């Protein structure tokens, strides 16, 4: 099952959520969580006995004793879930785009990617001093010539006033990690 939990951040959320899964004799396979401006969201993959339904999981999670209830979504997946993390595609690139904050920036750049069949693997954005920064990790496996994307991006940068840079993920890997493997 895929379980998604959203809550105001406080100590003990992970303990509560995983405790509920444990009590239902579930096996936690993978978990990813993120905190933004005091709110936590978490996505978990867990397997349960066939007798356990998504409603059971929601009910269990609703019985936590905190003052604020969790917002929970549970989805049952019939096909086996591939838990092993796939290798990063060879053509993984990092796109950084910076510019004056205004509405529609993320929508614009994500639409740019969508129109070209580019999948966004990860995205982080920050706002500082009215400057909005978007960092996207992209899979360019379906792109025949990176140069075409660069040319299109240059045009997009001119149109929007964003400063856009596209560089291979390997550069960031080797400059930020000890291992070169």
């Amino acid at each position, binding site marked *: 099952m895929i379980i998604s939990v959203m809550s105001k951040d406080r100590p003990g959320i992970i303990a509560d959520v995983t405790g509920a899964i444990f009590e239902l004799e579930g096996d936690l396979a993978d978990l990813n969580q993120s905190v933004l401006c005091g709110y936590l969201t978490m996505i978990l993959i867990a397997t349960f006995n066939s007798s356990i339904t998504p409603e059971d999981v929601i009910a269990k999670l609703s019985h936590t004793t905190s003052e604020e209830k969790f917002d929970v979504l549970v989805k049952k997946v019939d096909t086996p879930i591939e838990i092993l993390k796939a290798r990063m595609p060879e053509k993984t690139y990092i796109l950084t785009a910076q510019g004056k904050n205004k509405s529609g920036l993320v929508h614009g750049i994500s639409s740019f990617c969508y129109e070209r069949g580019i999948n966004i693997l990860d995205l982080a954005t920050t706002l500082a001093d009215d400057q909005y920064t978007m*960092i996207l990790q992209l899979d360019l496996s379906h792109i025949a010539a990176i140069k075409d994307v660069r040319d299109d991006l240059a045009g997009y940068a001119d149109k929007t006033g964003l400063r856009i*840079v596209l*560089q291979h993920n*390997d*550069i*960031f890997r080797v*400059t930020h990690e000890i291992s*070169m493997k």
Partner: protein
Amino acid sequence: MLRSDQILATVEMIQKENLDVRTVTMGINLLDCRGGNIKETCARIEKKITHLAGEFVPTCDLVSRRLGIPIVNKRISITPIAFVGAGFERGDFVELAKALDRAAGLVGVDILGGFSAQVEKGMTTTDREYIASIPEALAVTSKVCASINIGSSQKGINMDALDMVGRTVKELAERTKAQNGFGAAKFVVFCNQPGDNPFMAGAIHGLEEADAVLNVGVSGPGVIARALERLISTNGAENLRLDDLAEEIKQTTFRVTRCGELVGRQVSKALGIEFGVVDLSLAPTPTVGDSVGEILHILGVDAIGAPGSTAILAMLNDAVKKGGLFASKTVGGLSGAFIPVMEDALLAEAVGRGELCLEKLEAMTCVCSVGLDMVAIPGSVDAETISAIIADEMAIGMINNKTTAARLIPVPGKEAGDIVSFGGLFGASPIMPIRNVGKSSRFIAWGGRMPAPIHSFKN
């Protein structure tokens, strides 16, 4: 997980701070190219170079585009030509230089090094013919660079060769008078010359090397200068001490070196040619913001050449090595900060203002690589004085077990304070005044050898 602060730091490093891979240099062994006569030898050399390096430049361009890191120069280094051309005469060596120039042109590299000889102990007849060919060979070719090793910590200094190279430098400058003596910028004299240095004009493919190998020279004075400025503006100068600055240089060098290593390994893999070394040298360019001199300014001297300059350079050089050594599997070449006067806008300015003199520059070369590099001197300085300046630089290398080199350009018809410009990466500078000209000829006239220093006797 994406760490935006780290990613932005790396993006800044590449986009705004002049991070590039200064050179990818393919070393090629030419010993098997010796034919029965000069024509056959030239043909074999051209064939071998075009065969091995045919795809070199396009492959570098491809990797550069894929990674988004510029590779500024694609170069070739070869087995020192005096070994390849054993038994040939002066005119033959000029033909060899032309063949190398043609081959370099065909494969599209920027420059080719290794028109060289190693004569630190003695000279063969071939070596003498080779030295005699240098002025013409470099004047009639455009991409060929020459170097000669005339000293080592093991063998001492060959003073006969020293006398010849002083005259060679003069003649080279005279022959290329129309370009302000530019020929002399393509000739460098070494003590303890490494066989895997990717930087010009002194790159050779040493006899100890495999058939073909790729060496990478990283760059990055601009990156280090900006990193230091950022650190100082974030923390405030009053809250930082010198060791904090050294640590910042170290960490920045790590990242710079990693980029070089990545590029080198990808080019090497694509070409199926063994990866050699990363040379960690900080190599400035005349571009504003890509200067070693600027780092000295940031680290606290208001004039380059002021007391403290040597100490700062020592710390910089050491921090660069410490950061780079951990970043790369194999480090070699020269690996230190370069202070080529004409190629570093701030050093050139310091010469113009009279803040940096030859004697201080010489002192600074004791603690960094590589030596008196790209120093324009008055055309009137005599050959013996030039030999003697080189002798001092060679002695520093010999006694300190380090590589030192001299690349002096006696600019014909110009005097101290006049400006000379070669354009591009070779840069421009005012001519540096030379004191005590003409007072060393009795020393140079001795000839013979300066014996190997005592610490070479370790067996």
